[in-house]
């Protein structure tokens, strides 16, 4: 079934990619006057509030259906078709916006800037997948995320990677999340949206580099399944946290695991936890792990302080991403650029009536925010690192093949490999 679906979906995907790429080859307007009047630039109207709520309803419906298909029906086919619907609706129809992944930044900004009002629909987009993950695992990733769906459809020959590679890669989303929160809190940028690799494909119009980035992710995704989800998605960090507490997470077997090991390499995301062998569970190994666990547990505060200090020290570097800081430093270094009429940022500043002293003062305040935020970001990253290292010395007692609640996308592929019949 999967084979049958891959061809048309892949074809559709490539078509969209192609159209998006070719759309970049724009032609400059002719210099000669021909009497043709250029149409005025128009700004699209914002989406009507009713339709925004309709989107929330669609999300809720998709999440509910995905959860039902994963938990109750255990239907991989259903998940697949639902993810295609998501790709079409939230991806190509809604152009990848709004999406819960990016809503992290809206929520952050709303928390740090009282003047910024977040709409209830954005908040629901942020919260609903987390609530579902808290109870049922990452069913959002399974079928309700357009970014996940587009990557899921191009998985052709997933290559298993060593667990240490996966563990190391899984740290990157924390860095991305931390930076996204810091940048949103300081009103610097919405980097998740800016560097969304697939939004250009959804909109069939984006800078060439963005299309190449999206294409590269999809090509990589043919062999390293869902590279963005596993290596970058900042929202996935939150979902992973929630999902770890889920009581009704998807299971590989509908009944009791017979440890037939057929499912062991069925997961393209290497998210199945293999039970430790008896040899691993020996007393000496356990004691060694306990010692190291304690040692690295003690080191966690060191990581936090080290991370906080180092990232805070880099606040000068990080804050350069803020437009005001960048502009003020640019003008300090090159005051002659005031005459550069093509530099729209400078011209906009000059038109604003703001003085250079004001600009520098504001930039300095922003830089101080980065310094403070750097402590939190570095501390958070140090904490995550410390805990991730500690986790390497935990031996979970289980004899069954179970999905890793944090890493599992609830796609349901493993279910098809289980020979155990469901008990009714």
């Amino acid at each position, binding site marked *: 079934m999967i*084979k049958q679906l*891959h*061809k048309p979906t*892949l*074809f559709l995907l*490539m078509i969209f990619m*192609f159209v998006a790429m*070719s759309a970049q080859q724009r*032609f*400059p307007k*002719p*210099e*000669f006057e021909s009497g043709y009047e250029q149409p005025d630039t128009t700004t699209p109207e914002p989406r009507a509030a009713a339709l925004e709520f309709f989107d929330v309803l669609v999300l809720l419906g998709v999440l509910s259906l995905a959860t039902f298909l994963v938990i109750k029906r255990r239907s991989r086919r259903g998940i697949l078709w639902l993810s295609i619907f998501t790709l079409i609706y939230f991806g190509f129809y809604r152009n990848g916006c709004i999406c819960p992944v990016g809503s992290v930044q809206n929520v952050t900004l709303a928390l740090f800037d009282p003047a910024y009002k977040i709409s209830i629909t954005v908040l629901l987009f942020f919260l609903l997948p987390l609530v579902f993950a808290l109870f049922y695992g990452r069913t959002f990733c399974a079928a309700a995320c357009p970014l996940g769906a587009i990557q899921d459809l*191009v998985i*052709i*020959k997933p290559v298993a990677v*060593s*667990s*240490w590679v996966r*563990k*190391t890669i899984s*740290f990157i989303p924390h860095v991305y999340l931390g930076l996204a929160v810091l940048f949103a809190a300081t009103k610097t940028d919405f980097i998740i949206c800016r560097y969304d690799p697939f939004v250009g494909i959804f909109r069939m119009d984006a800078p060439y580099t963005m299309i190449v980035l999206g294409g590269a992710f999809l090509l990589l995704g*043919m062999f390293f399944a869902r590279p963005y989800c596993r290596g970058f998605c900042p929202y996935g960090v939150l979902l992973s946290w929630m999902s770890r507490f889920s009581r009704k997470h998807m299971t590989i077997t509908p009944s009791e695991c017979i440890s037939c*090991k*057929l499912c062991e*390499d069925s997961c393209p995301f290497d998210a199945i936890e*293999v039970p*430790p*062998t008896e040899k691993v569970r020996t007393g000496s190994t356990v004691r060694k792990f306990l010692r190291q666990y304690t040692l690295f547990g003690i080191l966690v505060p060191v*990581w936090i302080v*080290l*991370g906080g200090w*180092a990232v805070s*020290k*880099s*606040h*000068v*570097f990080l804050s*350069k991403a803020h437009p005001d*800081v960048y502009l*003020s*430093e640019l003008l*300090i270094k090159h*005051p*002659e650029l*005031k*005459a*550069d*009429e093509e530099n729209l940022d400078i011209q906009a500043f*000059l038109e604003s*009536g703001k*003085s*250079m002293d004001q600009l*520098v003062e504001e930039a300095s305040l922003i*830089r101080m925010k980065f310094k403070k935020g750097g402590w939190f970001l570095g501390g958070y*990253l140090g904490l995550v*690192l410390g805990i991730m*290292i500690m986790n*390497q*010395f935990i031996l979970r007692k289980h004899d069954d093949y179970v999905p890793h609640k944090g890493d599992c996308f609830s796609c349901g592929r493993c279910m098809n490999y289980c020979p155990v019949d469901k008990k009714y």
Partner: protein
Amino acid sequence: MNQEEKLKLAKQSMQISGIFSLVVAALLLINFAQLKKYEPLESETLKALVEQLEDDPRNEQLKEEIRHFDLMVRKAYFTSERQVKTGAFLLLFGVIIFAASLKIFTDIKHKIGMPDPDSEVFLKARRNAWQWLFVTGVVLFGLAFTAAIFTTNYLETYLPGELATIDEPTGNDEIRIIEIRDNTTDIAVVEEESVDTEGGEGESESESVRPAVEKAPETIYGEADFRKHHNTFRGPMGLGVSYHKNIPTSWDGSAGTNVLWKVALSKPGYNSPVIWGDRLFLAGGDQQARIVSCYDRHSGQLLWEKQVDNIPASPTKMPDVTDDTGLSAPTMAVDGYRVFAIFATGDVIAFDLDGNRVWVRNLGVPQNHYGHSSSLMVWNNKLIIQYDTGRGGRMMALNTTSGETEWDVKRDNRISWASPILIETDGKVQVVTNTDPNVAGHDVETGEELWKVAVMMGEVGPSCAYSDGLVYANNEYASLVAINPEPGAEVQWENYDYLSEAASPVAKDGLLYLATSYGVFVCYDTKTGEQIWEEDFGATLYSSPMLVDGKIYIMDNSGVMHIMKADRSGTIINEPALGEHSYAIPAFAQGRIYIRGENSLYCIGK
């Protein structure tokens, strides 16, 4: 078809489609690179043709050629683009076949793997994981620390008020950056340069900073001193009157009769020569460079020629100007110690008389659809600049020794191409300007507006004239007016018969002379405004008349100087020809006339 056959077919299909895709992708890349390289509007040939057209805007054949070439490159572009699209579809097709084949191949080959019972693998993976995480943490925080070390905090180096010039009113024609050297009256820091006596064109010159040297206080030269020279546009005070005698009335530029010397000019410009002592100064400029040149007015030897470059905030791209104005239309000014020049870029520069750069400023690129043309004026250590642009009216005075702003006045008038003149009334010197709509007088010391009369309109080109207590202003399609230049100023008389477009009027001894662009030269009575005589030269008159030695000298655009008696008779004395086009105003000094032709500088004398 059994599994083996399917596997074989998938494998072959995969290989063929893979190679096919790679080849198409390579061709696409090459094609795409070509497409990028040959963007139509980036065509050097097209650019060259367009540049030619700028020089010769009425060349219909050239226009047609450009259209034809433009069409060709666009066709080529679209053909190449179609090839890219076709290639992209082929690549898409190849990739789909490859992906489908790969999927079938891997599915057929797929076997359920056997779990690895080796506990060592598990333990090793855990060990590697924590070690790599550890390394990742160290590297990440190490990078953060490295970034902290190697990043300069420019905000900390900023001192409040340090870049106050950036805060000055926005707009292209506003002052942007100042680079002023240490410049008190008695301490001058100047840059020493080797004086170029060879007259090399566009040579780069080495510059070094000379230690501060104490100088004696400068004598401030006044009108009596200026009368001995020809230091500004239209002579002393800009009034169009020269006080030299024995000026020749006959010459033949082509034959060389009475031409004492003639030198070729290295850069074009519509500015007129100015003279101080033995030195004559000219400015020029084109897209490549702006220059100031100094000649020995006796021999015609080029004493020095300096490029006007390395000016902070000066635009890298030259402003759009029309060919009949150019980048160097304003005439320079000399105060006896320094020579000053302004260009359409908004660059103002001061050299000492030996060609050493004293100070530079950029006033911001003036918004001017023809090009900035208001000439400079000097008075009492002040360089007067009329800076009326598309963004509004403005007058300013810069300190001649330092370039610092002495005063800066915004005015409620529109853009103007006229130049300021200086007049003295009741012991006070005024700067008088002609703009749309105001003819106005400002206190030269403070910039304070003393009077104005809203009487003018249109694109004002002619400057004012002054005589017998009245200011005379006119503009084409407006009127000729006489105004009493004092608080409560009013129009004393007005006349609509003949009006000038570019040439400025001149008045003396009860007579006012005015040159229309269509060739009629008119004389009015300054008291009544009544016309006394008119003479149709049948040639375009853009240059302004100069009154010297009891005669009127007015050059037409073809290069013929019309010399008339400066009286009520309207007698033509002579009409000598230069032999080339000329638009500038002649300068006079000690029995000689200095005329800027289109391509050469002439010294006429006996």
